[in-house]
C-alpha cells in the first residue's frame, strides 16, 4: 500500500512540475486534482512510514498495551502537523496567476529548496539521495536563514519544520 502511495506521490509531483511548462498557462483544475491526489498519497505514505519507524523502535515490549499506543498517537498527530506544512507547500504546487499571491510564492522560493531536499526520496532518480543527517542540517540551515521575522506565514513554516524533525528523530 505504501509502495503504491509513494509511486503515486512521485508521479503526481512530476506531473505538477511538467504542468508549469505546458502551453496555455497553468491549468488550475488539473493542478488542484494533482495536488489533492499527491497529498492523499503522501498522507498514506507518511502514516505507513511512521508505523514502520515505531515498530522498529520497539526493542522490549514491556507493556504490551503501551507500544501500540505510541504509533497510534503519532499517526493521529501527523495529519495535524502536516497541515501547516501543507499550507506552506501548497503555494509552490499551484502557481499563482494572481498578483496578490505572487509575493507569497516569492517569499517561499527559498523554502522550495528545502522542500525539494525533503522529497528527493520520492522524485524519480535524478537527484542524489541526501543522508538523513545532512538533510536535518540543511533544514536547520534553512530555518536560520529564513528566520528574519518578516512574515507570519514563514513563522508557520518554521513551526512545521521542528515537527518534521521530531518525526524523523522518533
Amino acid at each position, binding site marked *: 500500500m505504501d509502495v*503504491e*502511495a509513494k509511486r*503515486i506521490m512521485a*508521479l503526481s509531483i512530476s*506531473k505538477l512540475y511538467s504542468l508549469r511548462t505546458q*502551453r*496555455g*498557462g497553468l*491549468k*488550475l*483544475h*488539473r493542478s*488542484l*486534482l494533482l495536488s*489533492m*491526489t499527491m497529498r*492523499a*498519497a503522501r498522507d*498514506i505514505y507518511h502514516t505507513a512510514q511512521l508505523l514502520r519507524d515505531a515498530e522498529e523502535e520497539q526493542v522490549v515490549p514491556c507493556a504490551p498495551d503501551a507500544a501500540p499506543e505510541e504509533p497510534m498517537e503519532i499517526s493521529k498527530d501527523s495529519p495535524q502537523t502536516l497541515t501547516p506544512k501543507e*499550507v506552506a507547500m*501548497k*503555494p509552490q504546487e*499551484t502557481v*499563482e*496567476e*494572481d498578483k496578490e*499571491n505572487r509575493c507569497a510564492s516569492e517569499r517561499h522560493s527559498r523554502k522550495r529548496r528545502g522542500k525539494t531536499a525533503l522529497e528527493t526520496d520520492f522524485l524519480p532518480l535524478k537527484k542524489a539521495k541526501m543522508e538523513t543527517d545532512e538533510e536535518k542540517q540543511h533544514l536547520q540551515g534553512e530555518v536560520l536563514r529564513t528566520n528574519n521575522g518578516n512574515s507570519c506565514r514563514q513563522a508557520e513554516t518554521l513551526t512545521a519544520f521542528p515537527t518534521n524533525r521530531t518525526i524523523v528523530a522518533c
Partner: protein
Amino acid sequence: MAGAGGGGNDVQWCFSQVKGAIDDDVAEADIISTVEFNHSGELLATGDKGGRVVIFQQETENKSQPQCRSEYNVYSTFQSHEPEFDYLKSLEIEEKINKIRWLPQKNAAQFLLSTNDKTIKLWKISERDKRPEGYNLKEEDGRYRDAATITTLRVPVFRPMDLMVEASPRRVFVNGHTYHINSISVNSDNETYLSADDLRINLWHLEITDRSFNVVDIKPANMEELTEVITATEFHPHQCNTFVYSSSKGTIRLCDMRASALCDKHSKLFEEPEDPSNRSFFSEIISSISDVKFSHNGRYMMTRDYLSVKIWDLNMENRPVETYQVHEYLRSKLCSLYENDCIFDKFECCWNGNDSVVMTGSYNNFFRMLDRSQRRDVTLEASRESCKPRQVLKPRRVCAGGKRKKDEISVDSLDFNKKILHTAWHPQENIIAVATTNNLYIFQEKMN
C-alpha cells in the same frame, strides 16, 4: 423524416458520413474540440484546436426520395481565434475553441458564440447570393470609370451570384476571465449569456462587450484553501433566471438570479454521498463533473463524471434519479489511467430530442447510448472500418476480465488514444455527430 428524436435500442444506427483527414498522423490543429447542432439541426458546427470553426449544412431533403438521406456539407469555414500572448503574465493563450453555442435564429443570418480560454466572440454567418451590378461610376471589377466616358445614367440592379457564406465577428468579449473559460451558455431570453472559468461565472449582455456582471465567485481569500473549481455551467432552457454549475467535487449548484445579484449562495445543492467501498487515491479525480446538460423539457439535468452518467431530477437534491455506468471496467485501471493522463479526460454528454436517450463517449472510439425509457444501453464504435454507406453499426462489448468471448474486446486492448469526448444529437431527428480525435462521424437512424 418524421422522427421525434426518440427511441434508443429500437433504433438501428447507420453510418452516414465522415469528415476529416484519413491518415493516422493527426495534425494537432485538426483535433476537434467541440461539436454543436444549431436549434433547428440544419447546421452543425465544429471547433478545433487550431482555432477554426467549420459549419456543415444539411441539404434540403429530396421529397421525391424519402429514403435518401440528407447529407451535411461544408457551409462555412473561418478562423475564429488566433493564438495570443499575454505579455503581462508571460503566458501563451491557446487558440483552441473550447465551446460553441448557437443563438436561436431571429433573421436570415445565423449567430454563434465561440470561445477559447480567454475571449468569447459572437459571429454572424450570413449568405450572399446576389450582388449589385451596373454602377455608374465604377467598372464591374471596382476600378473607377473615367468621368468623361460617362454619358448615360442607369440604375444598378441585383443579379444572382454563386452563393457566398460570410462569417464576421460582431462582438468580441474580452478581459472577463482570469482563469480558463470552460463553458458558455446562452439564456432563453436571447439577450444574455453566461461564461464560466475555474472560479467565476460572468453574465454578459450580447450587445455589450466592455463589461459583464460577475454572478458566482468561489475564489477563496487565500488560494491555499482552494478545494474545488467550477467545471461547467448552463442556463435553464426555459427559466431565464435559473442556471446550474458543476464542480470538481461532483456537486451541482442551482442558482436563482432573482434571489440576489451575487449567486455565491446556491438555491439548491445536488450531491450524492460517496460510496465508501469505492474509495481510492483517485476518488477525487473521478468524481469531478466534466459536463452538465439540462434536458430539453427542463425537468432534469444530466452530469458526466469519469465513469458514469447521472440524471438528476431538479426537485431532488440528495441523489440522482438514474445512474449509468459508462465504462465500469476502467475502475480497476485508474492507476494506469492516471499515469497516462487519461483520467483527466473531460467527456461530454447529450440528450436526444425528446429526452428519452442520452449519449456519451468513451475510449477506443466507442460511444454509449443509454436508453432511459427502456433501461437498456448499447456501445457503438466510430470507425473507418464501418464506413460503407448505410452500414448498420454493430454493438460492441468489452470484456472486463476472464474469458473473452468472440466479438468482445478486452480492456487491455482498448486504444486510449482514441477517445470520443464530444458528441451532439440533432434536436429533432435521430441524427448524431460524433467526434473522434480529428474526424467527425455522422450517423443516422436506419430507414426501412
